[in-house]
């Protein structure tokens, strides 16, 4: 029995994702440990992404404050702008927007880099030199993303709140002390942790999908282009869909944690 393409494609994609993820996990504890590669990827993923995260987070926080005011003023609840901005950022916007930005910036470059290595036989060369490409190429990249994306999320939280603060205090003339007080009043560590956990999970998605799309590249320069696009599109979709279910799971855990 053959499934229609609309069903088969996504099922095959998900299957391939778990296959690659499984191989990454299998190879992770095996020596030799390539710390230099990991360090290089940490810099590429993390440090090099700081400027774009600063910029996007700042404006996300700013627009969030503006829009919250529009909505909350209708209920005479302007006092809650700080809470709304802080919680929205920490729980949702910082990890999701950060994840999407990193999918575009890092997932694409991983897809292109590994894809080019595939079509120029560099991946065959690795295998020939008794080096598993999953071990050598994917393990450091995936872990660099899992480690660095939560850090970037944290940075986004702080900068986003600063953006919200600027808009609220400078443009909307909110009381700075009340605003800051209000920002942290309804937030606890568990909220912060949920955002970071999402970041780590999205990092895993971007890493595995970006590497896998590159790895499965066929057919020259055009193939590399296709893989790059696929890496970004697939990772972005995966982030947005999994975010819903992840939120569901985390909400379900909340009573146990904060109990």
């Amino acid at each position, binding site marked *: 029995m053959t499934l229609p393409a609309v069903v088969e494609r996504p099922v095959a994609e998900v299957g391939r994702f778990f296959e690659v993820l499984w191989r990454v996990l299998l190879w992770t504890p095996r020596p*030799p440990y390539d710390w230099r590669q990991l360090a290089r990827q940490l810099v590429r993923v993390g440090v090099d992404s700081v400027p774009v995260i600063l910029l996007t987070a700042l404006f996300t926080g700013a627009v969030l404050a503006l829009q919250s005011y529009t909505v909350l003023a209708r209920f005479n609840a302007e006092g809650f702008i700080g809470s709304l901005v802080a919680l929205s950022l920490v729980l949702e916007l910082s990890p999701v927007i950060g994840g999407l930005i990193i999918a575009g910036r890092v997932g694409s470059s991983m897809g292109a880099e590994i894809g080019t290595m595939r079509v120029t036989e*560099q991946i065959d*060369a690795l*295998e*020939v*030199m*008794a*080096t*598993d490409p999953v071990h050598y190429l994917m393990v450091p990249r995936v872990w660099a993303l899992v480690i660095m994306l939560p850090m970037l999320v944290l940075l986004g939280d702080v900068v986003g709140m600063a953006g919200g603060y600027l808009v609220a205090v400078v443009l909307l003339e909110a009381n700075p002390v009340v605003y800051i007080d209000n920002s942290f009043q309804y937030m606890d560590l568990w909220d912060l942790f949920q955002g970071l956990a999402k970041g780590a999970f999205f990092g895993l998605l971007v890493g595995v999908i970006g590497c896998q799309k590159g790895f499965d590249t066929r057919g020259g320069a055009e193939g590399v282009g296709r893989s790059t696009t696929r890496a970004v599109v697939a990772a972005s979709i995966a982030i947005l869909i999994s975010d819903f279910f992840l939120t569901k799971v985390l909400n379900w855990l909340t009573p146990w944690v904060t109990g």
Partner: protein
Amino acid sequence: MSDPSRPAVDDGPVVALEGLHKSFGDLVVLDGLDLEVRQGESVVVIGGSGTGKSVMLKHVIGLIRPDAGRVVVNGVDLASLGHRELTTFRRRFGMAFQEGALFDSMTVAENVGFALRRLTDLSGAQVRERVEECLRMVRLEGTGGKMPAELSGGMRRRVGFARAIAHEPAILLFDEPTTGLDPVITALVDEVILELTEGLGTTALTITHDMESAFRIADRVGLLYRGRIVALAPPEEFRRLDDPRVQQFIHGRAEGPLTDPRELAGAEV
């Protein structure tokens, strides 16, 4: 050229391809291919573009698994090896790729030393020494600090050789080592291959469509046609074979059985 003074070592083939079949979709690439390479021997397989030479070579090292048939290396059937065992098993091979396949994020020296750093316990100084030695063998001493992008095609190819031999493999595989190189560089590359195979007694399997080069470096030459080795003989003998396919290939004629449209149509069935 075969060398009669060379001691004949004969304890079974180093590489044995037995009845290999491989198809990609409807396209039959290998159709019952048999080939043996003996210890210390240099076998060159020639054949037109798209006849499956690269596919054959990738079977030898387990990059591609056959649909049917066996690949036996040093008496070990590759199909009997698990993924990790196969990875380890590959240490006895060195393979030089068509365009070099150098890691473009690394310097020449890092490329050549890659297998040594990953697979051996050699110290940094020992690795550097061996890398320089290998670069000297391919006449590229002193280029270790360059990036692959700074090199010409022929130089990249030779760095690929240096990388393939660095960990002193017992079996060397060359994928179109001279294709697209000028005659002088081709002669140099052939000389390097001869040095490696005759000088070091390494077993070698080369695929090419460069006839002159094939006759220079081979102990035996084989013709791959429609998924099988249809002729296999020492160079001098090979030249005199009256197989029309061999003669067409050697003399580079456009007309003949290799390009017969009926034959080509038949190949696609």
